[in-house]
Each structure stands twice: as structure tokens, then as C-alpha cells.
């Protein structure tokens, strides 16, 4: 059996920019087949699984994480082979120059975001970062050849190298939100062979970063009575606002927000205390900016909770999370499945 870190690496290395999640969805679906045969990939690239069937008369609990990652979309290929792109999701423009890029055409094409030579730059330009639409990607391939393997609408990602840092810190692109899929796998490991009072469904949904299509359609199709969304939350760094942050290594961040179900978050806190699972609060005044905002609205309303994984440097190719937090969330999800608030 693969370790959580191996699953995380496999998922993070898969490509699945919003709206074109197919490759990442395949990887996630394969990993789910360790737990159940009832795995499907929907036409809009979400992965659905029925992991446990308690019976038709029993309520259904859904664990959800999104499968898409931020990236770019090819908008123009010129005759010299320079590629222009648009942003898909919230790209951090501050890190684009001289960045390694992978263009996902009929093959993986390496590229580099070009910098303007110093002699062409005014001091003002030097203080600014370009818009995504203005960056130029060099592939080294002549335009006519490039157009045979890359077309408009193909996606691009920033190159990333999954790396284990000191302790249990891991860094990669797409930890948002593949690391939360791994939280769900950790829960399924805990639940193996155990009897549950509910039907348990799992979804890895498409298009969270923009449109929210995957979560909305998934909540309709799987029709859960209760759902827990799992997503990432900004973890503290010395320069960030303490009140807006969770902390790495301090466990599951339990979501507290108007749209979230009060009974569910209280139950999650009670379970964390009962089972000695590290947890912290994440209080949000308005939207949670996660799939929870969408799942709650579907089919007459779904009572939903949110658990977040602390993550540093969100929306960069070097997002950092800790395995101990992933394990804590896995334990909390498992505890909830065994003793849910319905």
C-alpha cells in the first residue's frame, strides 16, 4: 500500500487545470479503487465514489475535495512560436518572470516565461509585474511545428518539483487541493473494515477555482444529506495577519462561518476533543471561498461542514503543507463518519 506521501506526490504531479482535469481525475479515481469498485468519472471530470453502503434508508454523508488546480490557458501561438496565455484561477503574477512552464498539448512541452532585457526596461517597469495576458512563453519550437502539437485552449502549468523539506513538510504545486484528497484517503484508511451508520460518498470535484461547476453538479448527482468539504487555508508566515491565518502543524482547521452548519462544526470540535485530534478554528464572516459555499445550495439545501488544511504560499508552484495536519484531518473525518451529526 502506498503511503500518504506517495499518494500526495502522485496526485500533485498529475495535471488538472480547471476545466481540463481529466488526467488528475484518472489518478484520483485509481487511488479510490483501493477502497471501492463504485468509482465513476463524470462528463465534467469530477470523480464520484460510493465507499460504504449502510442501506437505502440510511442518510448519505459526502466528503469532498476539489481536483482542479490553477494554471493558464493558451490564447495565441505566433508564427515564431511564442505562446500567449490567459489566467485560469488566481495566478500569482509576482512569480511569473523567468518561470519554467509546461504546456499540455498532445505532448508535454517545456517552456520559459521570457524576461525583457534590462536595457529595454524603464525603472518603472522594473517595479511592476506583468499581467498574465502579457507574458510571453518561449518553447524553442518554430510556430508551424508548435501548432501541430499545441492548440488554443490547451492548458499550461508552472513547473514544479515535489520535494520533502525538513520534518514532515512537503512542497509542490497543486497541494491546493490534492493534499485534501489525501486527507480523505487518510480517513478511508482509518475506516477500513469498520461499520458506519451512514452511506459514505466521496467526490473529487472539478472547477472549484473558477465557476464551481463540479461541486454544484456533484451535490446534485450524489444527493448527500450531509457534506464535509475539505480545502486548504492560508497558514501563518511572519508577514501575514495572524487573525486571517491558521498555523502549520496545529491540526485540522474547523470552519466556522454563517453558511456552514453550526451543529456540524460543533460536532467536529467535540470529536476532535474526544479523540485528542489537533484542531484549530477558522472563522470566516462571509463566503468560505470553498466548495462548501456551493454544496449548501443544491437540491433544496445540504447541511455542510468545512475542514481546512493549513497551507503556505497558496497558488504558487511551491505550496507547503505538513503531513501531520493531513493525518489529523483524516482522523477527524473518520471520527465524523463513525459518529456523524445528522
Amino acid at each position, binding site marked *: 500500500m502506498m503511503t500518504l506521501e506517495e499518494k500526495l506526490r502522485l496526485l500533485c504531479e498529475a495535471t488538472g487545470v480547471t476545466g481540463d482535469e481529466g488526467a488528475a481525475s484518472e489518478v484520483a479515481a485509481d487511488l479510490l479503487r483501493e477502497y471501492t469498485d463504485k468509482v465513476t468519472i463524470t462528463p465534467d471530470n469530477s470523480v464520484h465514489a460510493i465507499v460504504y453502503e449502510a442501506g437505502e434508508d440510511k442518510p448519505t454523508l459526502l466528503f469532498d475535495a476539489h481536483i482542479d488546480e490553477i494554471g493558464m490557458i493558451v490564447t495565441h501561438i505566433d508564427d515564431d512560436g511564442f505562446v500567449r496565455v490567459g489566467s485560469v484561477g488566481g495566478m500569482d503574477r509576482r512569480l511569473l518572470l523567468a518561470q519554467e512552464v509546461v504546456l499540455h498539448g498532445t505532448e508535454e512541452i517545456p517552456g520559459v516565461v521570457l524576461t525583457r532585457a534590462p536595457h529595454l526596461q524603464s525603472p518603472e517597469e522594473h*517595479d511592476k509585474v506583468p499581467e498574465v495576458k502579457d507574458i510571453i512563453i518561449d518553447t524553442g519550437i518554430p510556430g508551424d511545428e508548435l501548432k501541430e502539437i499545441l492548440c488554443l485552449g490547451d492548458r499550461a502549468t508552472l513547473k514544479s518539483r515535489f520535494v520533502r523539506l*525538513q520534518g514532515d513538510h512537503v512542497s509542490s504545486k497543486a497541494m491546493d487541493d490534492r493534499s485534501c484528497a489525501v486527507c480523505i484517503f487518510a480517513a478511508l484508511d482509518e475506516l477500513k473494515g469498520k461499520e458506519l451508520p451512514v452511506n459514505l460518498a466521496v467526490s473529487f470535484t472539478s472547477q472549484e477555482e473558477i465557476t464551481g461547476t463540479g461541486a454544484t453538479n456533484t451535490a446534485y448527482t450524489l444527493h448527500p444529506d450531509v457534506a464535509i468539504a475539505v480545502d486548504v487555508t492560508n497558514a501563518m508566515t511572519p508577514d501575514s495577519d495572524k487573525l486571517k491565518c491558521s498555523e502549520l502543524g496545529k491540526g485540522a482547521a474547523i470552519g466556522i462561518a454563517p453558511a456552514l452548519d453550526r451543529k456540524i462544526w460543533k460536532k467536529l470540535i467535540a470529536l476532535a476533543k474526544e479523540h485528542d485530534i489537533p484542531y484549530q478554528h477558522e472563522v470566516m464572516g462571509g463566503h468560505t471561498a470553498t466548495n462548501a459555499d456551493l454544496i449548501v445550495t443544491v437540491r433544496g439545501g445540504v447541511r455542510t461542514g468545512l475542514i481546512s488544511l493549513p497551507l503556505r504560499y497558496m497558488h504558487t508552484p511551491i505550496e507547503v503543507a505538513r503531513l501531520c495536519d493531513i493525518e489529523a484531518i483524516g482522523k477527524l473525518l473518520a471520527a465524523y463518519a463513525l459518529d456523524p451529526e445528522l
Partner: protein
Amino acid sequence: MDLKLLEKLCELNGIPGDEGDVVDFIVSEIEGHCESWQVDPLGSLIVFKKGKETPKKRVLFSAHMDEVGMMVSYITDEGLLKVVQAGGIDDRAIFGRQVQIGKNRIPGVVGAKVLHHLTDEERGKALKTSKMYIDIGCTTREEAEALVEIGDPVCFVSDFEMLGKNRIKGKALDDRFGCAVMIEMIKKDLPYDCWFCFTSQEEIGLKGAWSAGYIVNPDIAVILETTTPGDLPGVSAPDDCCRLGKGAVVPFMDRATLYPRNLYKWAHTTAKERGIAIQTKTLVAGGNDAGAYQKIRGGAACLNISAPCRCLHSATVIADLGDIDAVEKLALIAAEELPNF
């Protein structure tokens, strides 16, 4: 060009003042192919290559070993590393990269305040190096101090790879490319005695060339380098300065040096006669170790032959194999003809 050799050179880490690993590797390559070598007090490697004849003029070939990078300047209570630049890197080409720290190549990532906590104005502003930090996964200063020391070098992680069929991309091509050309020259039989300086500390102001140039005292110094083309879409001559894929760049002037007219003309005439692609800079931009050699011990006459490289001073330098070939060919002819120039 032996691309495997170039790849090995680029994957070594060597910021200015810490070129030791590069020296060791080059020595392992050239031993047995040269008369003698020495490392000078500033860390430059000086190689004497005996040719078939001893000419009247002492010709020196030079390329620098150091690459742009950073140094650890402070360790925070939270176990994050603050850095200063060693060599000039565009601030905008540092955040979000993977790096390696020190001899043990401790992996780290360059972080900064997260996007979601920025104002709209901050999102469009260049992030300064002083606002970044390297996260190695330590949670306290003590933990980090056990692995990293103040002053440790920090280098980018970047794969050496092909871009299409005719270009390469890697870190440190500036100027391990020049080093690779010189290693291959040393491995050949040359008609005349030549000196080769693999200089240290070019990126912080040509320091290594000052000491090595004094020791060798050349009549002619040929600097093998990389230089920045401005050839983005929409930029044409003369603003582009030079272009990738258009051959070796031999300038008449840059920001540090006014090159002797006779050597400049020799290079352009010879390249055209021999069918070697050559171009000049159409602007006064850049600079290299010639800025030092022209002033040492009464001065050497300098010639600069460069490969144009996009994204110079970053983790993702791009060079063209045709340009590389042109520089190699012209450098070899220089070794045949300049000793009797």
C-alpha cells in the same frame, strides 16, 4: 559542444566566492590535457596549455565559473532564512522557486506573503528579495541553525533540458557555457601555447579577472561569455541589441569596455570568411571580464565572443545550439591566429 559536459557544469552550484565545486570538476576534466594549473587567491583556476609552438604573444582565454545566486543573511525565530543576492538577479525571478542551500544541498522554497492577503496594488508590484524568505521546513531558529549557517550559498534548482530541437535551458549557463568551450579547447591539440582562466566572482564586479589577469599578464584576452538579447516579439533592431539564433555576438563596445578596433574587425572578417554566423550588439549594453583585463599590468587587448542567452541571470537561461557552435568555432580560430596577431 558536448551537451553532457555542459549539463554537468550547469548542475554544479557556485555562487560568486564559492566556486570550489566548479574548480574541482574542471580540474578533473582537464588534467592530463594541460601543462599546469593553479588556483589563485580569489579562487580563479588558471590553466597553461602547451601548444606545438611558443608564440610571440601571450593569449588568454577567459570564462567565469560563478553563477548568480543568493546567500543566507539571517535566520528568523520561525526557522525561515532571509537572503541577500550574490550577483544581480531580477527580484521578480526569485519568488516561488525551489532552491538548494549549502554544501549539503538542503532543499528549500522561496516564499513570501500569500497572494490572498495582498492589496490590489501589491498584486501588481514587484516583490523585493528583502521581503522573501526561504522555507526549509524548520519551525524554529535552533532547528534551522543545525542545518544552515549564515553566509551559506543558495542556488536555484532548474533542470538542464532541451527546448525544442535546437535550444537548451538551464541555470548557470552564464557562464558555465564559456567554461565548457574552454574545457573542450584544452582537450584539443592547439598550435600555440595558450592560457585559460576560469575566473571567480565575475558577477559581483569582475574580481576574479583582476587577480588572474595580473598573474597571467596576457597580451590579448579573449572573453567567452553569454549576453542578453532583447529579441522579444515586437522588438526589432536596433533595440533588440542582438538576437538568439543569429550567431556569435562580438561587440565593438559594452558598458565596461571599448574593444580594440583591429580585434573586432578581425573577428567579423574571419567569421564571414569561414561561414561562421556572427553578429554585433546594436546597443551599448552589458559587460564582462574584459572590463578588468583591459586595465591590468598595462592592459591587454580584449576581444569578447558571446552566445546570446534569453533570461540571463535567472534559473532558466536559454541558449541556441547554433550560436554555441559559432562561438566554439570562432574561439578555436582565435587560438590559431591571435598568438601571431
